[in-house]
Every structure is written in C-alpha cells, then in structure tokens.
C-alpha cells in the first residue's frame, strides 16, 4: 500500500475538504460581507478539483493502480467521469446562486461551504468501493443537502422542505444502512469486490433482502418511483438555486452509486435486481409523466420531470451491460445540462421585486416580452421531451438502443410510448409562452433583467442541448464507453 498514491487518487476530495474548512473559518470571522468572496473562492476550488481530476484522468490510461486506502476507494474512469460532471454541475449552481439570496438579504458564506462539503461527499460516493466509504460520503452529502434545503430560514416553505427532506432522507438512510448490514451479514464483507465474490450462484433470502433494502435506500436518493414522494415538495419548497442543485449533482452521484452497486457489487446477481430496476424505471416514467399533468407550479412540473428522467436513466441500468451503463452516463451528461438549464431559466423568471414567476399563468405570453428567454426554454423543453433534433433525443436514443441490444424490446417499447405522455406537459410550456396571450395588461408582471451569470449558464446549457450537441457525440460516446468499461473491470 502506497500512501502517496492513495493521497494522489483522493486529491480532489482532500483539496476540496481543506478549502471548505478554511472557508468556514473565513465565514466565521468575515460574516456576511465575505459571502461573495467565499463563493468565488469555492468556485475556484471546484475548478481546481475539476482540473485535477481531468489531469488524473488524462494520465488515467496509464493508471496501473486505481485503488486507494486498502480497497476502500477507487478512482477509475467511471468515478472520474461522474466527478467531473458533479463538479461542473456544482460550479454552475454556485454561479447562479448569490443574486437570488442577496436580493432577499440572506446570503451567507456558509452556503458555498456547504456546497463544497456536499461536493466532497458526492466525490466519495462515486469513488466508494466499500460500504463504509459509501455511507460516510452519502451522509456527508445528505446532511449538507438538508441544511441547504432550509437555507432561506425566514421562509416557511423552505424550512418545511428542509424538515421533510431530513425526515424522509434519514428514513431512507436507515433503510440503506439496514440493507448494508444484511448484505454484510450474509457475505461477511463490506468491500464491493468481496460482496461480488460472495454473491455468486443462488441468491439466499437474507442476502436478497439486503439487496432489496440497499436498492430501496438508493432509489430514494435518486427519487425513483415508488420512493419519489418527497421530490415535488422538497423541490418546490427549497429556494430555486438549491433546487437546481438537487436536481443535478446529488442525483448524478446517487445514480453513479446505484450503478456501481448493482453492476459491480451485485454484478453476479443480474436477475436478482434487474426486475426491480425495470419496475422502478417504468413506474418512474409513467408517474413522472402523469404526475406533472395538472400541476400549475413550474417547479413541481420540473420535479416530476426529473422523476421521469430517472426512469429513462434506469432503463440504461436495467440492461446490466456495458453498453447500457455507457448509455446511462451519456444520458446523465445531457440530463445535467437540460435540468440545470431549465431551472436557471426558472430562476431568471422573476419580476422587478424579486418575486419569482412560479406558475404557468405567470409566464403566459412570455415569447412577446422576453423572446430570448422564451426561445431558450422552448429548446430546453423540447429537448427534455426527447424530440429530435435537440440533444435530449440523443440521450433517450442511446438508452433505448442499449435496451434493444440487450433484448429488452418490450421495456424499450413501453418506455418510449410512455414518453409521449411526458411530451404533453413539456409542450404545455411552449403553448403557454408562445400561444397564450398575457393574462391581462395590468396583471402582467414585468420580468426583471437577469444578471450576466444567469445568461451565461443558460446559454451554455442551451447550446449544449441544441443540435450542435450532436457533433459532440463521438467524444461523449467514447468517454462514456471507457467509463462504463472501467465499471465492469474487476480489480
């Protein structure tokens, strides 16, 4: 065991943790005045972590050793891929945050520090190859998330969202922990490799319970049906920048954990978990699509949309093949861009007093008043609906291709047919913005000018999901494939 190598592989987490602790001190003494500075330094730290991870990945082809700390931790291409995505999403979320809270006079440096700790936790989650590491990372990330959800302390709904998230999240963590204890009990091992080796052949009832509980706990974290109930409430109640974050980075981390858990630790028991994942996938697609119909609140609609998207992600996972995992990773990248883009667009929909336009009625006729914003939302919505030539289509395409290649034609057919239901509410955005007249001249609220940072994030996300994104497919496909293959490589 070479400690130097271990520290090198865990460098991104160590650096981020050190930066977070340092910034905590800065906030403690600097107070609210230092908030902007802390945010900027946090973004810089995340950029550093991104660059570091990318550099390790670039050498990665020659990385003979990916295991660190006696098999507790691994930085393979898969972990690197997920981490880059997590860091970039977190950076995007941090960039759009300060303005929102500053208008309300409640911005504090702790926000950025919590995001950094969250990033550390998520990094550990995706690198974990041992149940212990996984749990520590998961809790670090979750606990920071609970606080973030209730960050707007004087807002009842934010506090409610935080409390709901905490209670239900703690329950899910409990279920997960219970499942882990069962798995440990029946395999005698906490390391993924050990579990994989022990879980061959017939799956015993006890171990099966363990697998089911672990999957249930993780399904909560990715908000897959039937563990999705918290999502609309928390997403709606939490401040919009926090919702943007919840819908992107932690979800990416949780999906990555779920993938490593099922494909690597439970890799020999495909038939044990495949039907669970298939059910969760189809149920998420259908519930995510039906639930959004009839919602008036834009944030709730997008919350259901994220449930819906998780369903498509799980179709990739359900195949249990490297192609499926690769498709899932491609989907994650595109999903991150779409979801961050659409939530940032919501964030930009505020009137002059800083009150958000939160319902469909509020954005009626937006195309007349704010054409650029309306066109961006139009592209994002059609992309979420998976209509070509937007890049969201490619995400669904690769997932269904993997499903068809794995002979899951029925799953693919049902999934894609259900996606049409989802299209109904995505095009409702377009209908409201483009077809409807504003509710009435006096009732129309003026949409405030948005800061450049918001526009930058929105435009980058929109360009990525525009047809131009297809030009990236060769690289995106190659990276996803590499990452997926590394997931299947036994150390």
């Amino acid at each position: 065991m070479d400690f130097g190598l271990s520290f090198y592989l865990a460098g991104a987490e160590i650096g981020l943790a050190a930066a977070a602790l340092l910034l905590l001190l800065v906030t403690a003494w600097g107070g609210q005045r230092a908030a902007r500075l802390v945010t900027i330094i946090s973004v810089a730290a995340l950029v550093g972590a991104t660059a570091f991870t990318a550099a390790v990945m670039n050498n990665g082809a020659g990385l003979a050793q990916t295991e660190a700390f006696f098999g507790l931790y691994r930085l393979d291409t898969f972990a690197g891929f997920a981490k880059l995505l997590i860091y970039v999403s977190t950076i995007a979320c941090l960039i759009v945050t300060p303005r929102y809270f500053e208008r309300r006079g409640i911005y504090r440096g702790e926000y950025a520090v919590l995001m950094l700790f969250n990033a550390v936790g998520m990094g550990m989650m995706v690198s974990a190859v041992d149940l212990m590491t996984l749990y520590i990372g998961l809790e670090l990330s979750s606990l920071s998330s609970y606080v973030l959800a209730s960050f707007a302390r004087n807002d009842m709904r934010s506090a409610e969202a935080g409390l709901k998230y905490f209670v239900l999240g703690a329950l899910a963590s409990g279920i997960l922990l219970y499942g882990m204890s069962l798995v440990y009990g029946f395999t005698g091992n906490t390391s993924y490799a050990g579990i994989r080796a022990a879980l061959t052949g017939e799956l015993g009832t006890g171990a099966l319970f363990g697998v089911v509980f672990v999957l249930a706990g993780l399904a909560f974290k990715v908000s897959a049906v039937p563990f999705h109930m918290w999502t609309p409430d928390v997403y709606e109640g939490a401040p919009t920048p926090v919702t943007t974050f919840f819908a992107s980075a932690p979800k990416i981390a949780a999906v990555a954990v779920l993938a490593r858990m099922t494909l690597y630790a439970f890799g020999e028991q495909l038939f044990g978990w495949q039907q669970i994942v298939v059910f969760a996938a189809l149920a998420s697609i259908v519930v995510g699509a039906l639930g959004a119909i009839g919602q008036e609140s834009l944030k709730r609609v997008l919350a259901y949309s994220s449930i819906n998207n998780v369903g498509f992600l799980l179709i990739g996972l359900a195949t249990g093949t490297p192609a499926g995992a690769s498709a899932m990773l491609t989907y994650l990248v595109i999903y991150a861009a779409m979801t961050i883009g659409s939530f940032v667009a919501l964030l930009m929909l505020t009137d002059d007093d800083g009150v958000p336009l939160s319902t469909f009625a509020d954005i009626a006729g937006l195309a007349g008043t704010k054409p650029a914003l309306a066109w961006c939302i139009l592209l994002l919505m059609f992309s979420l609906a998976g209509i070509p030539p937007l890049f969201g289509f490619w995400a669904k395409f690769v997932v269904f291709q993997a499903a068809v290649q794995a002979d899951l034609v029925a799953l693919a057919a049902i999934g894609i047919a259900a996606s049409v239901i989802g299209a109904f509410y995505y095009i409702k955005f377009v209908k409201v913005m483009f077809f409807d007249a504003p509710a009435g001249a006096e009732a129309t609220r003026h949409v405030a000018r948005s800061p450049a940072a918001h526009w930058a994030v929105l435009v980058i996300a929109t360009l990525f999901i525009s047809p131009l994104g297809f030009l990236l497919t060769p690289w995106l496909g190659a990276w996803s494939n590499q990452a997926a293959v590394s997931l299947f490589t036994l150390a």
Partner: protein
Amino acid sequence: MGGLPILSLMLLVPLIAGIACLLVDARPARLIALGATLINLLLGIVLWLNFDIGGAQWQFQEYAPLFAGFSWALGVDGIALMLIMLSVFLMPFCILASWEAIRTRVGEYMAAFLFMEALMIGVFAAQDIFLFYIFFEAGLIPMYLIIGVWGGDDRIYASYKFFLYTLLGSVLMLIAMLWMVNVAGTSSIPALMEYDFAPAAQTWLWLAFFASFAVKMPMWPVHTWLPDAHVQAPTAGSVILAGVLLKMGGYGFIRFSLPMFPEASAQFTWLILGLSMAAIVITSLIALVQHDMKKLIAYSSVAHMAIVTAGLFAFNVQGLEGAMVMMLSHGLVSGALFLCVGVIYDRLHTREIARYGGLAINMPAYALFFLLFTMASIGLPGTSGFVAEFLSLAGVYQVSSWAALVLTTGIILAAGYMLYLYARVAYGEQRNADAAAMRDLNAREWVLLAPIAAAVLWMGVYPESFLAPMRQDIAMLEARLARAAPAGDANLVMGAPRAQSANAMATLPGAEHAGEGAH
C-alpha cells in the same frame, strides 16, 4: 456536379436564412425568406437537371461520419428527387401566400417555415435511417408552432392533437429501427433496403412503421388530426401540410415498409386495401356535407391519400407509379386549392362556403384558376389528377377488381363534393354584398396560382417528365417485391403487341377502313 455537396447546401440555405429571420424585422424577414426559398428552388432545378436518368440508383451521395452511432449520409434516387422538387417548388408560394396575411411575429413565422423546408428536404435526402428519423420527427416542432401561434380560433387544441398524435405514431418506429440496425449491423438505408429480415420479425417491424406512416399519411381511422390541423393552420401552413408533410407517410411506405419488409407487406395488403376503401368512401361522404372550405379540402386529401396507399400496395409498376404521381399531383393541387381558399379568406376572413356565391361574376380570373384546380382534384383528363388516378386504379385492378371498383366510386364522389363546392362558391347568385365587392386577383396572387396551374397541366399532358426519373427505381422496387406479391384476381391476359400503333395512318389508300377497325 464535381465535389459540390448540393444536398447539404439545400439544407444549409434555409437553415441559415431561418436563423437570420429570427433576428430581423418583418420586412427584411419576408425578403430573406423569399430569397432563400428561391435559391433553394434554383438549387433544386440544378439537382434535377444534373440527375442522370437511368444512371446509378443513388446520386449526389454525401457521407460524413460526424456522429457516434449514425452518420451524415445524404443521397437521392428518382423518387426522393421528385419529392424534393415538390417541396422546393411549393415553398416560395408558401412565403408569398403569407406576405400580407401574417402580420404578427413575422420573423419567427418565416423562420419556422424555413426550418420546415430544411427538415423536409432532409427527410427525402437522408440515407441513414436515424438521420431520417431525426428529420422526420423534428418537423413536429416548427409545425406545432405554426399551427399554435398563427392558427385560427381553435388552434391550441389542433396543435396539441397534431403533435401528440404524430409523436405517438412515430416513437414505436424508433424502437423498430433500433432493432433493425442491431440485427442488420448497418444504419444505411440502401443497405437495409436489400437486407432480408426474418418474415416473423417483419410483421412486427411492419406494424411499428405502419403506426407512424399511417398517422402521417393519414389513413382512416387515424386521420382525425388532419382536418383540425388544416382548418386551424394559416393558409401557408395548410399548403405545406397537405403538399409535403402528408407525402412523408407515402414516402415512408415506399422507402421502408415495401422494400424492407416485402413479406409482411404482402401479408397486410388487405389491411391497407380495406382501410383505403373505407377511407375513400367515408371521407368523401363527410366531405360532401362540410360547410367549411378548408375542412372539405382536408377530407378530400384523406380520400386522395387512400388512392396513394392502395396504389402502393398493388405491388406492380402501374400502382407504384400511380401512387407517386398521385403524391406529386395532390401536392400541387391541394396546395393550390388551399391557396385559392386563402385568396378569398384574406378578403372576407371566413371560410364558410355559404358566405360566398357568384364569384365568377366579380372574380373571373380567380374562378378560372379555382375551376382548373377543382377539375385536377377530380381527375379530369389533361390534368395531373387523371394520370395519377388512372395509373393507381389500373394497378389496383390487377390485385383486386373489387377494391378497384370501390376505389373508383371515390372519383365519382370526388366529382360530387368538388363540383358542389365550386358551384356554391363561384356560380349562382351573388348572395352577399361584401362577397360581391371583392376584387379579382392581384399581381401577387397571379404569381401564386399561375405556375402551379402550369405544373398541373404539364403533369397532366406529359407525365413522362416526372415518371422518367422514377422509372428505374420503381422497377427495382417491383423486382424486390416480386417474390412476395400476392396473386391478383384480375387474371389479365397480355395481348400480342401490334405491328403498328393503334392510330397509325395506313399508307395505302385502300386500307383506310382496315386501320380504323383495329381500335
């Protein structure tokens, strides 16, 4: 053509012009749109002139492996060439028809039409099955906006119906495509057209494609989106919908269903013939009782498309050629009829048939054009409709004389509803003072209608110009289908060819009567 990627260029011109239209005011947007569509028409003519009839099956091929999983592969055969010509020919008229009718958000409107043009050309030129799907589906977005933003009173309902109906039809086709590519190992359309899928799998694949193309076509009973969409869409939207979008369904059948799944196609011949027969009788009767001009023409479109599907599934050269000519002819004629409706709609802002009457008195030139297109729609000899209907029905007759009999009633019914429409609009008393005060065609409207009228007569009098580029492709398709073609009930006996043509003048003065007896 050297190395000039003419097809990519035809896609690029409207795309760039469309983006430009989004950024400028109404007036420059109109000019940019007109310019771009005219450039594309010019490029289309260049394409046609350089198309080597009887040469290679696929011409103007372009290939660039730009994407993972599929590639930028373009190319046309005669069938695709003719449909591209139809698209680029109709587009300038769409822009001109909207010149004065559209006053709000002109830039966005023109952009939507230009994007639409690029996507339509892409559909017909794509040589990669996934590229085809992308173009095919992407058309939903601009059309949804065109109907929803600039449509009539009930536009929201119509736009939703159009979008969801056609989307649901298409998604299963994607799964079928994924399966086919997985099995065949290639996504190239020419390669897939020669690949023999197992007959059992063909049934499912055929049904998945059928779901998509039947909705797009549209075939009875999944046609109900069409009247709604047509009535609510602005005039130019109806023209493009009837003129080109419906042809994507027929193109899909001829490019995918028939050559890729010949056995399944033969198996489902009766489904197609049955639906076509039902469609032609039912929708013709519905058309008879319409009060709304656009709705009447929309139902007549469904009836005409039924002749296309029947002709396609006749499995012989006449049927296929007839179906293709019908698609081209219907594209011109129904487009022109919608333009005719648009002309009087712009003046009186109603499509109610009863509000008009006696237009032949105050609008003689208009009445003349309207009559010509009415007759072409009925299929009067000398117009394109006659060639189309005659060939299709001759083809169907070889497969089933009963189907041909029922389908032929459609022509009689078509004469019924079209002439009834014409009589109520153009003849009789001038019932309303405002209708009587309408002025005749202005210069712009002349420019709109005259070229289409010329094309309709050209196709009616000398269809060879349009059939020649397609002849080789249709012959190849028939050869491919020959192994599965169902036996017909007509039992035609091929007569011995005459020494001379039937109307040859006898050279000897004494033999004049013998020559005439040979009729």
